[in-house]
């Protein structure tokens, strides 16, 4: 069933990529937490997705969009911050805490430099999309999606610093939406996710071609998005920075 997922935010969300957080990535992360917790509870081990050559696909409560040639992706978009959202460059700093090191190591070298080497300080930008709410579109099971998202209290980068705090989730069925568009396009008609060319052709044939996209480039097709096995040449979502 086509649906709309909305997160009401305290301030905004910090993101590294020039497009929003993918709903399937978020759901996979929430489901992985559950899987990991049950493995630990059962006294079993688990392998991190990035440490295996061919990571398994979790059974997400989303429809699968089959693009042909065996390629497929979940029918869900990346977040759309709305037309009024603005990007702000915040800065985070990391500095070596010598006292903390003394607590965690029994012997330390005489000098640990905070200016060079692996412990050098950082002064890094983090790009925050300031917006009161963000929206995803998808095709899937709204109840199970709500169940998975309910414990998620923050999204994006720098969550420990208060970025991406979620006040509430709102998941609503949207039967009026075309399932093909709901799985690929933002509400403004721009491309909403990393998409194989075959899907773009299907959108064109269905009379709803993406109005804007982010060009073509190497990107992940489905979670875990950063895994090298998931990287392929795709049409990229419309960029947050225009």
């Amino acid at each position, binding site marked *: 069933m086509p649906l709309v997922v909305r997160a009401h935010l305290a301030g905004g969300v910090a993101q590294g990529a020039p497009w929003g957080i993918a709903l399937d990535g978020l759901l996979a992360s929430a489901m992985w937490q559950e899987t990991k917790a049950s493995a630990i509870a059962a006294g079993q081990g688990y392998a991190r997705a990035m440490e295996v050559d061919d990571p398994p696909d979790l059974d997400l409560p989303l429809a699968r969009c089959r693009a042909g040639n065996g390629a497929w992706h979940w029918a869900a978009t990346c977040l759309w911050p709305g037309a009024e959202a603005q990007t702000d460059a915040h800065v985070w700093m990391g500095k070596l805490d010598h006292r903390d090191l003394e607590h965690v190591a029994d012997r330390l070298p005489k000098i640990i430099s905070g200016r060079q080497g692996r412990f050098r300080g950082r002064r890094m930008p983090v790009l925050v999309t300031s917006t009161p709410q963000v929206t995803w579109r998808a095709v899937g099971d709204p109840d199970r999606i709500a169940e998975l998202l309910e414990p998620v209290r923050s999204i994006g980068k720098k969550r420990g610093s208060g970025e991406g705090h979620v006040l509430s989730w709102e998941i609503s069925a949207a039967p009026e939406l075309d399932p093909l568009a709901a799985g690929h396009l933002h509400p403004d008609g721009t491309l909403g996710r990393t998409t194989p060319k075959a899907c773009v052709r299907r959108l064109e044939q269905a009379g709803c071609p993406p109005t804007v996209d982010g060009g073509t*480039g190497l990107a992940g097709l489905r979670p875990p998005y950063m895994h090298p096995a998931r990287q392929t040449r795709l049409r990229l979502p419309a960029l947050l920075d225009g």
Partner: protein
Amino acid sequence: MTTTNPGPGLDVRALQALLAPRRDLDLMRARIRAHLDTCEGYVAFSGGKDSLVALHLTRQVAPHTPVAFFDSGLEFPETVDYITELADRWRLNLHVIPARLTALEIMAGNGTWDHRAPTRHGPDLHQVLITEPAAEAHDRFGAGEVWGVRSQESRGRAAAYANALRAQDCNHTPACDGRDRRARHGGRIARVDGTVALGPVWDWTTEEIWGYITRHGLPLNPVYDKLRRLGAPEHAQRVSAMVDANQLTEGRFTWLARGWPGLFAELCLALPRLREYS
């Protein structure tokens, strides 16, 4: 290729252009002319703002001087297009000197950027990307070099210029001192191998560079505009190789990931640790 970028509100660079230049540009042009007459040589052009000003000053007195671009193999795509267009527009005597190994080959080969790869001793990045191409350019064009290196960029560069100025002989009567000495003798670095570099903008501030570029309407590398639109602060607006070991802990790759996501993903396949700094 873009010239200036007047956005809404106050255009700071236009304002910088209005400030009266406090440099004796005639003197600097005469020094460039004398430097190239004495040593011959070339202008080192990276596609960045500083070497653009050095190139523009040089063109006014020696328009046919060879212009050398040291290609690291990891330049922004916009930089390569920009240099090609600029060479065409300004009819530059451009010579592209590729490094014998690309920066990516060196970085992927030494294992530093991949936790899973064994560490291997490989060639030094600076040696392959700068020293060797510069030596080739000197062999081809002569011992002289005009470059856009500035003191303000790093302590090392400031020290190199300061030491070189201290070592300069002055045969003027009376002997130059203070600001006069800096203007007449500063910016010249004579190396032990006999090559001599002259930095016409060696003691310029960043604001002076932008002011000069805006005042003269010089065509600017579009990478600057893109980085500025993304929100990158002045110090992060760099157009040199996309990846090297500089400014890692100041978020250099955050801007790369944001502005060039497809390229960043490709680079991460070869250099997975890039993501630790984005």
